């Protein structure tokens, strides 16, 4: 399918319009990329895949920028695309490591953070199906309500509830009992 070349006299007007559009998108990119990368990392559990998912998602946002930027939340649109991209990774035959072995570039703060319990929790989260993982990331990292999570993912609230319930059940079953946060609370 050939696209007709734009007439020369239209090029100048389109050039300035396109520049303004790109500047607006670049401003969004600078402002929101770190936050979106964090979400992408939690979705994928792998730094390289997170960047790949983020790049593809932002590219799709760019292609739809004229339609999306008037919406209330561009971030919600990008999150939805990221979830979808992550869901599709397995179809491309990507090998996902069971555990996140990538080192984060900065140091983790050692405070009352319990390495034992939370490493076990992280490992369980990474074994969740991609869809379930997306639900818990939006709920427990993005701190979205069930209704907001359902809206972003385009699923029902009932599905959000059931996915969270299954994830919590998996934690209760697979994290060692002595690392149960309820026990640690009682010990304090």
């Amino acid at each position: 399918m050939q696209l007709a070349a734009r007439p020369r006299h239209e090029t100048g007007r389109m050039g300035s319009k396109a520049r303004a559009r790109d500047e607006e998108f670049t401003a969004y990119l600078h402002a929101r990329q770190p936050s979106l990368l964090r979400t992408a990392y939690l979705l994928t559990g792998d730094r390289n895949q997170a960047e790949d998912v983020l790049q593809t998602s932002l590219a799709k946002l760019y292609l739809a920028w004229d339609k999306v930027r008037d919406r209330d939340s561009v971030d919600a649109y990008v999150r939805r695309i990221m979830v979808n991209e992550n869901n599709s990774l397995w179809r491309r035959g990507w090998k996902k490591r069971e555990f996140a072995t990538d080192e984060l570039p900065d140091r983790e703060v050692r405070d009352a953070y319990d390495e034992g319990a939370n490493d076990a929790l992280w490992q369980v989260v990474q074994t969740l199906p991609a869809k379930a993982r997306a639900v818990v990331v939006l709920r427990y990292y993005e701190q979205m309500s069930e209704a907001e999570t359902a809206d972003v993912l385009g699923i029902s609230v009932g599905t959000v509830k059931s996915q969270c319930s299954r994830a919590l059940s998996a934690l209760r079953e697979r994290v060692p009992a002595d690392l149960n946060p309820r026990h640690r609370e009682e010990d304090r």
Partner: protein
Amino acid sequence: MNDERPTDTTDPWEAEMSREFDHRVRHLHEAPLTFDHVKGKAMTIRRNRRIAVAGGILAAAAVIVPVAVLAGDGLGRTDGRNDFATTTPSPSRATDTNAPTPSEPPAGTLGISYLEGTTWHRADGTTVELAQRYDGGTTLGDDLLAVGNDNGRLSVDVIEPDGTVVESFDTLSYPVANPDHTTVAYVAPGGDLTTRWEGGGAAMSSGLADGDTVAAVTGGPDCNEEVDGCRVFLNHGDGSAPEAADSHGVVDVVIPGAVRINDVSSDGPVAAQTSFSDTGSCSAVYDEAAGENVFETCDFSFVGFAPDGAHLSGTDAYRDGFGQGWVVILDATTGDEVARWEATDGAATDWVWEDDSHLLIQAYEQGEWRIHRLGVDGSTEQVLASSEGDDLTPVFTLLGGA
């Protein structure tokens, strides 16, 4: 609907998960992608999309899409339909260069497209003579997607309004269209859930089995997530719970406990069968957003929503083999019966909504095939009749659309 945020909960595991996520990424502040990185990727995606459309290749989509009920699927045609074909499809389906031109339109009799033998009657009143009989089909825009059933092997001919077969493809299920017939979905050989619309198409999901069928499509026409998006509702041949696939790549159970999805309204409610036994069945209209039934009944089984979603066609909760002795129109919000048609020495085999207020019913009565029109106001009229064929070979095929 729960609007509580996780910070409001007292469940220690929820709090622990929030804490763990925060700790995992709290020192990740990077922005590794430049504008050129993103724009370069965007241009690649755009080029790939154009190639797919121009080449007529269905591009694999990352998002999953919903389904629309195929006109004429009123009696579970997609799961065990009897083979009524009286002619076997010709081995060659090459474009017929001698395709006849459409005849002058007679006075219109039905407001939708339908087949009568080898004649395609379009909603605008024009007729097109086809090269062969077909076993079913639907319309996509101005085109006819005609389905042939050769001993269980399904194939589709895409036929333009001048009768030219422009494409043929195999399918594991009957194509189903969205309410305005701008998108269709079907299960392709190999198990891909495939959608198509004018100028494009996409594979929405994969891994489906022979026996899985499309129940309904909502949304469209372009099922790509960044355009229109759509949602395809699926019934599984192995009896597992019906699911919906949407443009975001999510495939999910639609109604916990449902046996089969009959139709989905353009407004959202889902008509589904919830149980069945040797003596009958129960059904419900389910509001997904609210997560609850609008109404339930064991008196009727459902077939399809009217285009505006205000009414729902149905019949007996106990389905007989050949056809149904009566057809009803129900109020889609209350389940109350508002109109009924009863056969005269025969049975109804198929029915399709003509518009918001009229249901077209095909029946075999007193030795002939008839089309009746039932209005939501209870009015009935016989519209067409034909003595061709026999009681196992419907003369008419109601398609819906243009």
